[in-house]
């Protein structure tokens, strides 16, 4: 490779180094520091000299937010997935004859494999806890707030990804089945919301969902309800906001895979004896899987760290890690703890991001 080639590659890497790695190292360093009433609000810093600064860094903040439990839970999850991947093909082969391959047979095999994997991991955990009692201290959670926030973010991200898929797939399917001359218009309509600020669009939902909002007024006027519904400041409002905001990210990749699909495949399936429904399950659904996976990650990854939607639409009981992070930084001015929360969040996000990349790569290979 000549120097021009190297330079071409060096530019994006330099960019990443300056704009991602350097800030990350700074955040990592802050997360290992202690809170102080100073500017900047932590100690030690470079004024103390480089080596003395490094020598007093510690993992106190991580212990405080219960990072040990998060890491342990995480390790357990990774172990579960790895074990599932090993077990699933064996179970499938053992349970099913060559000829059975309906989606229900596969689902049954998948559920069995998942159950076996979880039981195995539980046994491993129990044995470890019994052999090394010192590990108990590692997973101890001094302040449950952070752990609960991670879990609640995970739950909200999973549920809203599922809801977005449920709404997004039919939209993408209808778009791909629409007459050729309508498709650009429909695509435009999906992208159109991006022309307005995300913040303003989320704000608009307050006007719709509040007690005196348009939705309640409409429902009251047509007599469906007699009392206004309390939707704003509840988890439902957060789901509405997330699904609304991230719907295009689900629709576009699914539409892309469905649009590429040869229509004659479905006709061939029907010609070979499928009803319209079974043709969908056996041909359209498996062929749109890469789009579905891409869409799910594109919704899941940003939702996990979402801050604006829960703080505008959610109530005080909707705890999401993005919101906690904000409060630590700006309300408590506890930069070290906030940094520790951010580092753990990044670690949690790495797994779906890596899986997303692998899915994209696999699809590219299939397309040759």
């Amino acid at each position, binding site marked *: 490779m000549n120097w021009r080639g190297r330079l071409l590659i060096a530019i994006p890497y330099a960019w990443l180094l300056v704009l991602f790695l350097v800030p990350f190292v700074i955040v990592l360093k802050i997360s290992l520091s202690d809170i102080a009433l100073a500017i900047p609000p932590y100690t030690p810093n470079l004024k103390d000299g480089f080596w003395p600064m490094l020598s007093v860094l510690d993992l106190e903040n991580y212990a405080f937010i219960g990072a040990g439990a998060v890491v342990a839970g995480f390790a357990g999850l990774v172990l579960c997935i790895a074990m599932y991947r090993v077990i699933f093909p064996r179970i499938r082969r053992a349970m099913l004859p060559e*000829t059975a391959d309906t989606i229900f047979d596969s689902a049954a095999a998948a559920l069995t494999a998942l159950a076996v994997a979880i039981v195995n991991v539980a046994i491993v955990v129990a044995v470890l806890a019994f052999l090394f009692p010192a590990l108990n201290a590692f997973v101890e959670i001094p302040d449950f707030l952070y752990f609960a926030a991670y879990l609640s973010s995970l739950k909200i991200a999973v549920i809203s990804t599922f809801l977005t898929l449920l709404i997004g797939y039919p939209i993408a399917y209808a778009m791909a089945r629409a007459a050729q001359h309508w498709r650009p218009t429909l695509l435009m309509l999906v992208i159109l919301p991006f022309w307005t600020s995300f913040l303003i669009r989320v704000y608009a939902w307050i006007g719709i969902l509040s007690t005196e909002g348009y939705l309640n007024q409409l429902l009251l006027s047509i007599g469906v309800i007699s009392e206004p519904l309390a939707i704003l400041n509840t988890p439902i409002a957060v789901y509405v906001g997330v699904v609304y905001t991230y719907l295009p990210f689900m629709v576009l990749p699914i539409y892309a895979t469905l649009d590429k699909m*040869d229509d*004659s*495949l479905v*006709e061939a399936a*029907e*010609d070979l004896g499928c009803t319209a429904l079974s043709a969908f399950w056996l041909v359209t659904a498996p062929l749109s899987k890469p789009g579905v996976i891409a869409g799910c990650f594109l919704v899941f990854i940003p939702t996990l760290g979402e801050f604006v939607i829960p703080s505008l639409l959610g109530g005080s009981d909707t705890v999401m890690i993005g919101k906690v992070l904000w409060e630590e930084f700006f309300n408590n001015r506890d930069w070290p703890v906030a940094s520790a929360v951010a580092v753990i969040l990044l670690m949690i996000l790495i797994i779906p991001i890596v899986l997303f990349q692998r899915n994209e790569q696999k699809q590219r290979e*299939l397309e*040759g």
Partner: protein
Amino acid sequence: MAHANPDAVFAPWDDPVEKPLIQFKNVTKRFGDFTAIDDLTLDIYAKEFFALLGPSGCGKTTLMRMLGGFETPTEGTILLDGVDIGPVPPNERPVNMMFQSYALFPHLSVWDNIAFGLKRSDMPKDQIGDRVEQMLKLTQLGKFAGRKPHQISGGQRQRVALARSLAKAPKLLLLDEPLGALDKKLRHETQFELMDIQESTGTTFVIVTHDQEEAMTVATRVAVMTEGKLAQVATPEVIYEAPNSAYVADFIGDVNLIEGTVEVPAKRASETSVAIKWSATAPAINASADTPPPAASSVTFAIRPEKVAISSTKPKAANVLEGKILDIAYLGNISTYHVEVAPGLIIKAQATNAKRVSRRNLTWEDHVYLSWTDTAGVVLTA
């Protein structure tokens, strides 16, 4: 047409007792204002290899898709074995289709692609494996059973598509431009494979093609279509030797078309002879027809280039025309000579190159004679 027993000529269409497998009865199909199929009536018999031939947009694919169940006729009925299949959805028809794009399921292996239709049928599971193996053997795909469609060549994909559509042993197999994606050499080989498979399985094949050579090679009968109508339905020989219209004559193969008017027959002429006046100065063309058109009616005389002889000396024949060689198309085995016999009228004549080119005695600008017998050409009134 390769048939094992030369005594028993396969011609169910000439047998009044034979019942057709498929009957189109006054079928019309419109898409909005566009009429794709226009009041078409057609019978196709069991074990036929029937070709629908025509330029793109003539309605041949629509006709086939109506058989497959992907389009419903706007008017008229289609009968399969005497049963109206209009309301029967594609998945319940005893008809399978091989798609132009092959439409192989990219997420399934070759084995699973072939087994796809069988798994949807009520065939017991233990027999499916045997049937798939049988199909793999028929199409010589045994080695590729575990591969995915994108891991095999175009010719192999074509055979997978054929195996998949034959696996359910349909009464009728539809082939939509099945060889369109193959290169010429492979196409020729595959045409003979298709004929062998059609004969060994005894399935009725309906093939759509725009390649007239392909239709002539494989088919028992050819239907030439134009603008949603059937121009002619006949065996390849009849289509070629006795086209019923100038359109068919022109569409199939190379032809010379000369327009003229029928002269009043001479007294001593036989009942079948026709004299066609095509130029004020040149002698009339002597031809023959079973039922000669009336005098003074305008007709087209069609003659194939290979039936026109070319010589440098004046031969004795029913028709002799003088002309000058304008062009010579050398094709290796044969040469086609473009001879101008009258201002603006060029007649093509073909001669086999029995001698090597260096010894050929005809060349550009040569004064030559074209000749043919009175039965070599056809008189067309349409």
